[in-house]
């Protein structure tokens, strides 16, 4: 177990280093334009360009540039935006994290419950009309662009049916901090949560159904049946427990990916000022230091989340502990 943790930890550090190098190369070493003019933003004066060159050590060798960049991102954390003058980017990213976490955690709770309900129901009534219907609806959920679904939700809840009793409670777009007004926080996030969860309910329902059906052909299920357990007990106590291992892996990857930028489109559509919206605004203003910060921090979060999932996985499944 210990050697496995150490190995995964080393792997994680290597991947983080790799990502930082890739990001650095994309922003500083892609042929085509001078990195100073990219970082300084549109219509920068020659003085700003000169200051950027000096600040980022652009006249020095590439490895030195990399070291300066990393120092400014992680140690001194004094990287500043040139578009919004003087705005320190690392604190801005940190300030946006609670919004993204609120959105993703709420949606995750919805999709885990929804995915399990859909998957178990479809597997229990395999081949029935219910099964087929759930799988078709799930497939439609997987096939929708999330930003479009969000817009349609806005159309219904903010405009067309806002005056009806169904949606009159929906507040205007935006985020209310949990500490300020817990009920307002909840109301502001219900529609975004549902929007974000739809895709994953479809995906997880399908995966869980397939995995439950696969499990139903295993020996231990036959044993459970021959012991005289009811179908419900076999399904929920025996088959579901093993199938949840796949579920946990998928969940860790998706959760990490969403916090690390995947929720971007949902945040943009609903005007939630999270890390994704920060990245989007920086993209519209071509604010490179901000994008570098969000990309690096978000991907590091994803890598850390994957590492934690690996640990949890080893904890759940003894086989992984041994052969790792």
């Amino acid at each position, binding site marked *: 177990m210990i050697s496995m943790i150490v190995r995964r930890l080393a*792997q994680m550090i*290597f*991947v983080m280093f*790799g*990502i930082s190098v*890739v*990001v650095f190369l*994309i*922003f500083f070493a*892609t*042929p*085509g*334009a001078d990195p100073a003019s*990219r970082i300084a933003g549109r219509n920068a004066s020659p003085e700003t360009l000169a200051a950027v060159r000096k600040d980022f050590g652009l006249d020095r060798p590439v490895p030195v540039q990399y070291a300066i960049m990393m120092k400014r991102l992680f140690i001194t954390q004094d990287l500043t935006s040139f578009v919004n003058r003087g705005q320190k980017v690392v604190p801005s990213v940190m300030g946006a994290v609670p919004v993204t976490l609120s959105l993703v955690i709420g949606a995750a709770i919805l999709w885990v419950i929804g995915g399990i309900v859909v998957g178990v129901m479809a597997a229990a009534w*395999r*081949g029935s009309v219910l099964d087929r219907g759930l799988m078709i609806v799930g*497939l*439609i959920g*997987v*096939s*929708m*662009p*999330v*930003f*479009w*679904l969000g*817009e*349609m939700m*806005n*159309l219904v809840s*903010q*405009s*067309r049916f806002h005056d009806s009793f169904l949606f009159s409670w929906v507040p205007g777009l935006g985020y209310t901090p949990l500490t300020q007004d817990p009920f307002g926080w909840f109301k502001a996030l219900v529609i975004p949560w549902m929007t974000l969860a739809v895709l994953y309910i479809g995906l997880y329902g399908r995966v869980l159904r*397939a995995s439950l*059906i*696969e499990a139903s*052909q295993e020996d231990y299920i036959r044993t459970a049946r021959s012991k005289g357990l009811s179908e419900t007990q076999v399904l929920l106590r025996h088959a579901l427990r093993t199938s949840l291992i796949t579920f946990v892996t998928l969940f860790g990857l998706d959760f990490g*990916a969403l916090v*690390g*930028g*995947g929720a*971007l*489109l949902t945040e*943009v559509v609903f005007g939630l000022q999270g890390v994704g919206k920060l*990245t*989007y605004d920086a*993209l*519209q203003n*071509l604010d*490179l230091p901000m*994008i570098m910060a*969000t*990309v690096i921090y*978000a*991907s590091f979060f*994803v*890598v850390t989340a*994957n590492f934690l999932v690996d640990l949890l996985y080893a904890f759940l499944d003894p086989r992984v502990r041994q052969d790792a």
Partner: protein
Amino acid sequence: MSMTSEDLPSDFPAAVALKRRPAAGPWITAWRKLRRDRAAMAALGVLLLVLLLCLLATAYARHVAHTDPFVSNISGSFTLDGVTRPVLEPSTTGLGLGFTPIGPTWNINGYFLGADNQGRDVAARILYGGRNSLLIAGTSTLICLVLATVIGVVAGFMGGLVDAVLSRLLDVLWAFPIYLLAISLSIVLISKGFDIGPISITSGSLWLPIFIIGIVYVPYVARPIRGEVLSLKSSEFVLAAIGLGVPSLRILWKDVLPNVMTRVIVFVPIMIALNMLTESALSFLSIGVQAPDASWGTIIQDGQTMLYTRPIVALAPGLAIVITVLALNVLGDGVRDALDPKSKLRIGGA
């Protein structure tokens, strides 16, 4: 030693039967299975219909709707059923400022789905946009699968240092959030274009989103292919070929690649679906297809500003995406069942 149908006397009944019906190859068997799958065939029909409609974009714009969907028509007017109306009408709601584009006429002779805020025909733009969406999704899938197959096969077959380097590279890309990688690449490429040696891509080119989307999903395909090659390498028929002294390149070509190809084909429809969703997202974020070109994603973005007044502008291209991606996913299920009998046991088998 070996007896084939040719060695048998021709009046031998079984040999006659064998000659008349040669054993179907794996591809033909798979195609026959797919053809019996009614959902997959319906999906294929929908896809061909979408493709046909999009190919007719120019004909529709020129000869049916009589409009140029790439030129703004802010002060224009048009005549329908003897009534002439401006394309952009003054707003009647709010402060009465600004203009509202005309809504759907449901008449294919002009503004079937209404106009966008530049006064352009939305229906014609959706047909043109569909061409770009399909082109980008298809071409980037081709790039992704070729790159992933080469990387996966080389890493799995060569092993050793090559495998170690390639696998670590895939690990890094795998951990990189897709949209952030695409955003990083787009922001440096879209503003200034790309120039390495003989390859020169201008900033508005469709090749930029194709190239970006083609790269970001490589690890998702390359990893399973590498795994497949590794398991093939220790399979009995490859070990037998090695034992017989067959040169390794020939083993790669004759024994490994054909088996990997079925897995690659299974990826085709689902990757096109995924790439189409990614393209629409990037275009929505204004880092995909660049104006005045259109794709379904950019039209949804155009429609965002008038979502509450003319929702059809955002609604229609989104529906086009849902229908196309859904059909691709259904086809993907069918192709997987047809090519991989094991998965049929797992997923279907009611």
